[in-house]
């Protein structure tokens, strides 16, 4: 037992049952989502909601189901059981594929930075920019002035302007992470799912990334960040959800969650 537990910190809320109200008010709504791989329960009746305009951090030990959760939301994995709804319960995500979900307005950043390495930085943004996605129409596509303005805006945000015409493959690790976040911005999603954005970054880069994500959130995008780096999560200053063995272990502010005995036991260590 640690000293922290002795402090009169408000206990983290236990996972609560979903209600009709949660469904219609939430941007993203997961209820009782279960995913099994060869008998292993990657997600076990996982339930939580993300409100419009909210930023949420998700922590948890390896194998807690963080990436599987993202796979379910983005249509890469179909849940065995449970509901996944978007836009106040109007859209059932379990019925859609990756492309349809991306078009709805859910953007995803992978754990390993995944940019189009043999394209220039600016072409990466052009490809991600919200707009025409049809194959035949894009044979004759010309960049509009509006799109050019939007791309310049994104360069302001991700601070990669001087690298616009370099190949994305030539960027440093941290720059690739930012480029990928910039590509998400270009998609202009309602919800950004960001998987370990600061893995492998220097302290300065980590702080800048926290600032960048706060800025993105302030501009009206909902953000879900999966991260191990507790300093970074603290920098974000948002509600935290701790996953363990495929379900929610604790939810609340970082202080509340890190005071939770079970969280300390399975994740933070003593």
């Amino acid at each position, binding site marked *: 037992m640690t000293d922290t537990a002795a402090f009169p910190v408000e206990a983290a809320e236990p996972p609560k049952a979903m209600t009709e109200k949660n469904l219609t008010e939430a941007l993203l709504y997961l209820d009782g989502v279960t995913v099994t791989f060869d008998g292993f329960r990657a997600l076990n009746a996982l339930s939580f909601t993300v409100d419009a305009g909210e930023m949420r951090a998700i922590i948890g030990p390896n194998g807690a189901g963080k990436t599987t959760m993202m796979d379910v939301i*983005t249509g*890469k994995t179909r849940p065995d059981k449970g509901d996944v709804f978007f836009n106040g319960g109007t859209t059932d995500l379990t019925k859609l*594929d*990756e*492309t349809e979900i*991306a*078009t709805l307005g859910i*953007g*995803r950043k*992978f754990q390993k930075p*995944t*940019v*189009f*390495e*043999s*394209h*220039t930085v*600016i*072409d990466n943004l*052009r*490809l*991600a920019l919200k707009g*025409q*996605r*049809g*194959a*035949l129409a*894009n*044979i*004759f*596509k010309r*960049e509009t002035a509006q799109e*050019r303005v939007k*791309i*310049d805006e994104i*360069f302001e945000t991700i601070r990669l*302007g001087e690298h*616009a*015409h370099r*190949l994305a493959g030539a960027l440093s690790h941290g720059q690739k992470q930012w480029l990928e976040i910039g*590509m998400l911005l270009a*998609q202009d999603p309602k919800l950004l799912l960001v998987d370990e954005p600061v893995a492998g970054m220097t302290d300065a880069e980590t702080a800048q990334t926290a600032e960048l994500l706060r800025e993105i959130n302030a501009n009206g995008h909902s953000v879900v960040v999966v991260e191990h780096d507790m300093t970074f999560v603290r920098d974000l200053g948002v509600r935290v959800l701790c996953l363990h063995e495929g379900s929610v272990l604790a939810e609340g502010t970082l202080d509340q969650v890190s005071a939770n005995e079970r969280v300390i036991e399975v994740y933070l260590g003593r």
Partner: protein
Amino acid sequence: MSQTDTRKPALLGTGGLVFLAIVIGLAVLVPALNLLLPAGSALHVPTYLVSLLGKYLCYALLALSVDLIWGYVGILSLGQGAFFALGGYAMGMYLMRQIGTRGVYGDPVLPDFMVFLNWKELPWFWYGFDWFPFAAAMVLLAPGLLALVFGWFAFRSRVTGVYLSIITQAMTFALLLAFFRNDMGFGGNNGLTDFKDILGFNIQADGTRAALFALTALALAGGYVLCRYLVRSHFGKVLIAIRDAETRVRFTGYRVENYKLAAFVVSACLAGIAGALYVPQVGIINPSEFSPANSIEIIVWVAVGGRGTLAGAALGAVLVNYAKTYFTSGMLAPYWLFMLGGLFVAVTLFLPKGILGTFLEWRARRSAGSPEPDAPPAPGITAKPAE
């Protein structure tokens, strides 16, 4: 501050212009040297050489079609020869119908092999092939439709990588077996041959040969410009993105299967055109064109020339086929297949970007620091997608 460049990227670039100049130069020069100079002149190009070069250029167009999907989308098709052969058969059927009563059996409607098989009527799928525009449409439609149906199933089911290669190989092998059968109605083992004329011109005449050569060169030039336009368009950028990180493209909201399908169909049509130009110049089309080994050979041409460079694929096709002509006509003939295999291994190990890919990389390194790269780097044969 604006990062967006106002410069429009040139469609062709210096390299592309050089390539086009060479091909169009050949289209003019070779027929001229053949037709205008007397046979005794040192610069005279004999007719057999015109047809041989024409054959090389057909292969170059075929290689270009493979490079469009392998070099830019990462689809390693080991069945491209099937599309080439289908285009060839469409042209061959037209040429058979042009023989008329000049066949061995003198039947005004039925080609010789049908008379020989004791058939009484022309099968329905031969109707219309006596009319050139119909045959020309089939040159595009037959391979295009096969690619559309095959690709629709394969890409929708997300068959990728080596599995896709294997089923394309199976496709061409199945067609090989089918076309070998006499009762398929395409001449069986012997295929279609003994052509007499094309559009009323004697197919053996020097003038016809020269014209066919010039047409082939123009088709290659046109195919090059088309591919180049496609790969530099927004569409083409999506293709390259699919090659490098397919999952990312899906999560960005593009319907990957539609892009792959569009590229695959264009590529099949180009291969069909190459086949249709090939048949009148070599004088025969038979099922061996469907053989899996042929399709694999095309991959070697592209790898040698430089995957993902377009012009390199054409160059590789010409070089490897020149080597094939040279080595299979001498005492080294029995060893040609060993040489070809050795060449592929050597290129993979020592020149993974191929001849042109290596050259472009060397040139890019020399002028390092140029703000806008002329072209994205060639992927090379060993390049794997990120996921």
